[in-house]
């Protein structure tokens, strides 16, 4: 599913974000990337989602070596991933329905199918009936659920989340984590970058600990 083989990442400002990182995440596995801010968790996610390319080493996602993917192939590569952000990255001037449907519209899914799948995704995250509401009218926890619904509506085999509970209180964070667990239960691989140690212990999944750009555990 995801293979990092001796990956180095240096940014243009000279910062070495990753140093000789090797890791392997299997299909259907739920993995936490842990570590302090700036440790390199987000850099790993950026390499998985092809927002960045490695300086050295190889990154293979869904059987595709990202180094060999052309710029034209990136959109279809990203359609097979679901991405959730700490700040949700929702379009605040569009209703919930449009935010979620966007993932399917870009994939040229027929409208009738879009309607069915958006409602199904909203049902999964407990927001069915809120289709026409603007994200600004929702609570932070609900906005995060919309972000998750958008990430899973395309039925990806891999779900990537960067600090998805960073802005949530513990109860809401648990709710969101349970949602991720449910997706893992149906065979979706889930990679979550988080520094919330208590939550990680609570869900008892494999954790990869990153420190100053290297895997330490």
């Amino acid at each position: 599913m995801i293979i990092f083989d001796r990956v180095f990442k240096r940014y243009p400002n000279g910062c070495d974000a990753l140093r000789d990182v090797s890791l392997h995440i299997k299909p259907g596995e739920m993995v936490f990337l842990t570590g302090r801010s700036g440790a390199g968790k987000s850099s790993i996610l950026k390499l998985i989602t092809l927002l960045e390319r490695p300086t050295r080493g190889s990154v293979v996602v869904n059987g595709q070596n990202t180094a060999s993917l052309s710029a034209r192939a990136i959109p279809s590569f990203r359609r097979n991933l679901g991405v959730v952000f700490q700040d949700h990255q929702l379009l605040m001037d569009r209703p919930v329905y449009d935010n979620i449907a966007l993932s399917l519209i870009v994939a040229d899914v027929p409208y009738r199918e879009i309607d069915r799948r958006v409602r199904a995704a909203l049902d999964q995250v407990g927001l069915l009936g809120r289709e026409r509401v603007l994200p600004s009218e929702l609570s932070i926890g609900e906005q995060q659920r919309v972000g998750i619904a958008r990430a899973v509506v395309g039925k990806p085999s891999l779900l990537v989340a960067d600090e998805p509970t960073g802005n949530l209180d513990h109860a809401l964070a648990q709710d969101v984590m349970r949602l991720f667990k449910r997706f893992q239960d149906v065979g979706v691989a889930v990679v979550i970058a988080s520094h919330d140690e208590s939550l990680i212990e609570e869900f008892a999944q494999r954790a990869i600990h990153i420190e100053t750009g290297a895997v330490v555990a």
Partner: protein
Amino acid sequence: MSSPITWLARHLQALLSALGRLLRAPLGTLLTVLVIAIALILPTGLWVIVANARAATNDLTEVVTLTVFLNSDESLQSAKNLELKARTLEKVGKVNLISADEGLKEFREYSGLGTVLDIMKENPLPHVLVIQPNAQNTDHSSLELLRVALTAWPEVDTVQFDSQWARRLEAILNLLQQLFFAVAALLALGVLAIIGNTVRLEIMARRTEIEVTKLVGGSNAFVRRPFLYLGLLYGLMGSLLALALGAVILVALEAPIGELGALYGSTFRLSGLNPEEALRLVLIGGGLGILGAWVGAARHLAKIEPRQ
């Protein structure tokens, strides 16, 4: 690969989305469309002037005539024979014989020298053929060929026509036509710049949306599509407004031009673009809109990549 219906639905959605954005900012849209319309109407106006001048000078058959003065000793019968002979020439449209007597009568009427002419024992004027070339032979070279042919007739003394006037007019029209192409090219660049810049601003305003769209797998073509429709709509609306403004200007000029024509004894009326030319202007406007949007979008969309 999407089905044709899905493909069509996506394009319709992009078109409606672009239209919605224009309608949500009516004042900004109107100002941009007005600038595009003005940029389009200037070369169009020049084109209309050239086309009307050409149409007016197509009446050169009415204006350009060759005056053939026969030898003074030619008889009226000989002049009538020459009139018939001239009619058979390929380049000739109409021939009018003015006999020496008719010429003298006209001269007496219009010159005010009647008493002086009474003193003269003989009519000094020759018979004259006034020849109008046919519509296909009003250009300078054809007129010159006709003049040479008529001069070669032994019964003919001299042949006159106002060649300088015709040549100057032709040169002015050619110059105006060249000017039209130069102005049209410059203003087309202007329209491209206006639309390109408008699309650039729109892209900047929708940066977050573009980033999110790319992050969930939107291709550059998908992201670019609504901006191309935006350019198309600006171009189409600009050209339609240019047509409307042109029609208003024509109506306003109709009366003064009619009066001016009447002073010259002409029934000339200024005419605007015909339906084919109007359609061409709309298509050019739309094409410039798409091209301007493409240039603006291609350059700026490539710089926007999602952040995490």
